């Protein structure tokens, strides 16, 4: 009599991967990573990655401020101002700190200030990527 589960039988595996479990770390890591660049990696004991991300994003943001870059406000009105705000707000705590201290409020008056503005926006966008990476580590999608 044939065995229904012979050794040569290929066991069908589901083609769709199971849903990722929602853990407290999968919420905390990206949130903290957004607020403090690199912190999402640090709380998951990715020390070198976290410190490199923190240094890169924070230094980029500070350089942008030192170059007299403009920090966009939430109520810009103009579509480009809104996009600039979305980029800036990605820096999380750095953006909140700059708003509280009134940094980056001057108009863009020379080329270096324009570079600074781009630094500020890109620092925020890179932090969004960093926070997403922290989430992927938290759910086990990335080592």
């Amino acid at each position, binding site marked *: 009599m044939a065995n229904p589960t012979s050794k040569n039988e290929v066991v069908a595996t589901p083609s769709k991967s199971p849903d990722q479990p929602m853990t407290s770390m999968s919420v905390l890591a990206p949130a903290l990573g957004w607020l403090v660049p690199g912190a999402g990696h640090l709380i998951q004991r990715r020390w070198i990655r976290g410190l490199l991300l923190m240094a890169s994003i924070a230094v980029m943001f500070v*350089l942008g401020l030192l*170059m007299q870059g403009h920090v966009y406000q939430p109520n810009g009105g103009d579509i480009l101002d809104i996009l600039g705000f979305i980029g800036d707000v990605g820096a999380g705590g750095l953006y909140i700190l700059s708003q509280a201290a009134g940094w980056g409020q001057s108009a863009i008056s020379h080329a*270096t200030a324009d570079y600074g503005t781009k*630094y500020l926006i890109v*620092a925020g966008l*890179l932090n969004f*990527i*960093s926070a997403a990476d922290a989430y992927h580590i938290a759910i086990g999608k*990335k080592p």
Partner: protein
Amino acid sequence: MTLALSHFSAALLFSVFASVVFGITQRNTSREQILYGLYCFAMFMGGVFVAGWLMWLLRR
């Protein structure tokens, strides 16, 4: 305090920081991250030089 970087210095620093973040976030193993970061840096700087020469040619 005001920092006045040249266009090239600003592009160089931008490339360094962006390459570090891209390398770490877009690859899994340490070796792949380093290689991808170096690749991104080379592409950024290559793009700077290509764009610079193109603008020089357009200006003439």
